[in-house]
């Protein structure tokens, strides 16, 4: 099961009750206790209908996965790819669907995304990608040239990522469905022996690395939709993460705790998900987070935090302190020039992600509640 979809939303701060001075009041304690009990419960899926929020990677997605899917299939730990033992081999398995609109955008297209997305889920789980299946759902009337172009994009991306497309399926649906085309890919890979990764393996003191500037893919898509009338040269960052992952495993294998690709919901969502899974706190130094100036500018105008914007070729790695320097150097040598250490793992308060703002204050970076919608004021 991929995509645990946790994490985060609008910026908020801890404050409000600055009257925190003095002895904690017993009624206040009791109320906080009630809230904490309620939050610790496995989220229930109680919504009457599916809304767009259920696909946004935030709290609603989490309620769907943890409240409906995981219990039904008795899935324990939720990671980007599952491991299946086949004979002596440890095989990683993952699947992903792609419904991006528009089909082509600066820096990539749906076909390229469909390969890299699945390859990356395998890679960050510590598995060398081997083979993909390809399911296409095509809309009646789709231009064959467009389809030809996407098939070519798939072949090229697969070859670049070193995976084979070995099986597939095609369905055609009536005009008005499927927005041209939807793609679903399933990938298998071989677990790498150099590291043992788990979302619950984070320990206080661990360092947080990102492999490059964040928010490019999501911002490129938003601008390509032409809803904002903003012109900016932003390209999707879609690419295979296996070379970066391979370098990480080589340089810091035993120190690697967990790696994630920061897709839907962005880096902010990944951090919240892992803070919850490991019951640790995290602190992010906002000034150290690499953001391309064009992305930062567009995000500023739209009132969106780049930390919640999707990436398709960026990983977040947690590394034990002794391996951090080597891991960062390895990422940079592997072509991730903008890789940076952006924060670390702490003890308190558990399951919370804090941001040290460049302004000198702190805030909590919470889970996304729905899509990161532009604010009106």
């Amino acid at each position, binding site marked *: 099961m991929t995509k645990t979809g946790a994490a985060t939303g609008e910026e908020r701060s*801890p404050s409000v009750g600055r009257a925190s001075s003095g002895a904690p009041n017993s009624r206040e304690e009791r109320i*906080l206790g009630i809230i904490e009990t309620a939050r610790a419960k496995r989220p229930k899926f109680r919504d009457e209908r599916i809304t767009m929020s259920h696909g946004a990677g935030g709290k609603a997605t989490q309620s769907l996965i943890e409240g409906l899917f995981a219990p039904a299939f008795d899935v324990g730990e939720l990671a980007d790819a599952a491991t299946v033992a086949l004979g002596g081999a440890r095989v990683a398995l993952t699947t992903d669907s792609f419904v991006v609109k528009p089909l082509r955008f600066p820096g990539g297209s749906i076909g390229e995304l469909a390969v890299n997305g699945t390859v990356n889920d395998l890679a960050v789980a510590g598995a060398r990608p081997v083979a993909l299946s390809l399911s296409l759902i095509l809309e009646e009337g789709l231009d064959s040239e467009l389809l030809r172009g996407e098939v070519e994009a798939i072949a090229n991306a697969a070859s670049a990522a070193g995976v084979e497309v070995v099986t597939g399926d095609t369905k055609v649906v009536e005009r008005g469905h499927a927005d041209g085309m939807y793609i679903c890919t399933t990938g298998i890979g071989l677990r790498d022996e150099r590291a043992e990764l788990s979302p619950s393996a984070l320990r206080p003191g661990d360092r947080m690395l990102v492999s490059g500037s964040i928010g490019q893919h999501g911002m490129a898509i938003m601008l390509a939709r032409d809803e904002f009338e903003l012109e900016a040269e932003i390209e999707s960052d879609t690419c295979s993460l296996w070379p970066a992952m391979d370098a990480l495993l080589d340089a810091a294998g035993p120190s690697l705790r967990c790696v994630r690709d920061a897709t839907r919901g962005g880096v902010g969502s990944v951090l919240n998900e892992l803070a919850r899974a490991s019951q640790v706190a995290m602190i992010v130094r906002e000034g150290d987070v690499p953001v391309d100036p064009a992305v930062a500018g567009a995000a500023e105008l739209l009132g969106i935090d780049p930390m919640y914007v999707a990436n398709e070729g960026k990983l977040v790695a947690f590394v034990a302190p002794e391996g951090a320097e080597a891991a960062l150097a390895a990422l940079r040598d592997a072509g991730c020039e903008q890789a940076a250490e952006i924060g670390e793992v702490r003890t308190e*308060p558990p399951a919370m992600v804090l941001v040290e703002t460049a302004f*000198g204050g702190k805030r*909590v970076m919470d889970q996304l509640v729905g899509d990161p919608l532009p604010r*009106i004021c």
Partner: protein
Amino acid sequence: MRFVDEFRDAELAGALAREILSVVEPGRHYKVMEVCGGHTHSIYKYGVDDLLPENVELVHGPGCPVCVIPMGRVDDGIALAHRDGVIFTCFGDMMRIPGSDGSLLDAKAQGADVRMVYSPLDALRVAQKNPDRDVIFFAIGFETTAPSTALTLKRAKAEGVENFFCMCNHVTIVPPLRALLDSPDLRLDGFVGPGHVSTVVGARPFEFIPADYGKPIVVAGFEPLDILQAIQMILRQLADGRCEVENQYRRVVPYEGNRRALEVMAEVFELRPHFEWRGLGFISQSALRLSDAYADFDAELRWEVPGVRVADPKACQCGEVLKGVIKPWECKVFGTACTPERPIGTCMVSPEGACAAYYNFGRFAREREVV
């Protein structure tokens, strides 16, 4: 980013923080309300309150335009959205605000054609592209957004667009402030005035706050340094025993406001005799509707809406929280009947509301020293 980064400089912030420390009287507790939701957002985003001394408390005011829309109005909007042939348009953050039976996002999931737009002009374009459909724009916001709705309606009229309608929920800033100030149990020492609203109305309309109520107000911009400086100016007034309207946001806000924007608003809108605010109840002359000249565009006149008033539950104490009389956790329904997933009052609706923030980070507020 040039021209922006200089308003987020940590060194300047440190200098302002030290100035604030030198102005406050030790042992005195100060409560300052930032009126505008945009300020609240910046305060959270940059952690502005971390730079304030322990005894200066920020109270989040009623200026979040989506949170103040009462449930009944959301229900009316949803009823219109469900009508055959209607395309219902609104700003993104309005789509999540709960009515008595779900939000516009839920209505969309049930089949209503609800579309997110980024400006009223976008909604007008939707109408022009879909001449066989009726396109309704759910207009919200203070004087900040009202002029753009007004200009859009003027254009619709000039271009003879007949399938564009507006459900007007625009509100005005002064009446709710007066309502807050009129309450005998108010515990606020001063106000950070709303910068965006003031670019339209100017700083003059706030003169009643020092004149009638003896509280200082400083109109402020939205960068963290703007807010910090405004707080410093308020505390300085209190220390000097002064009490006046000051304009920190002079680079944008003219004291007399924007005459042209006010004129176009006066042409397109008129005051409603009264309007309900979520959490604050009915406040007279606190909202706008379309004027007679624009009656043809008024969605509420074109169609019947349920118009059912959904009362805020009696136990809800948003009013007291807003006035700074009680802390969120002192409210009878906080954390039990009223949660961010199922909010009752305005303070829990928006993630920036005082109660929602406290719900999420309450214990952390005490424990952060540990971090």
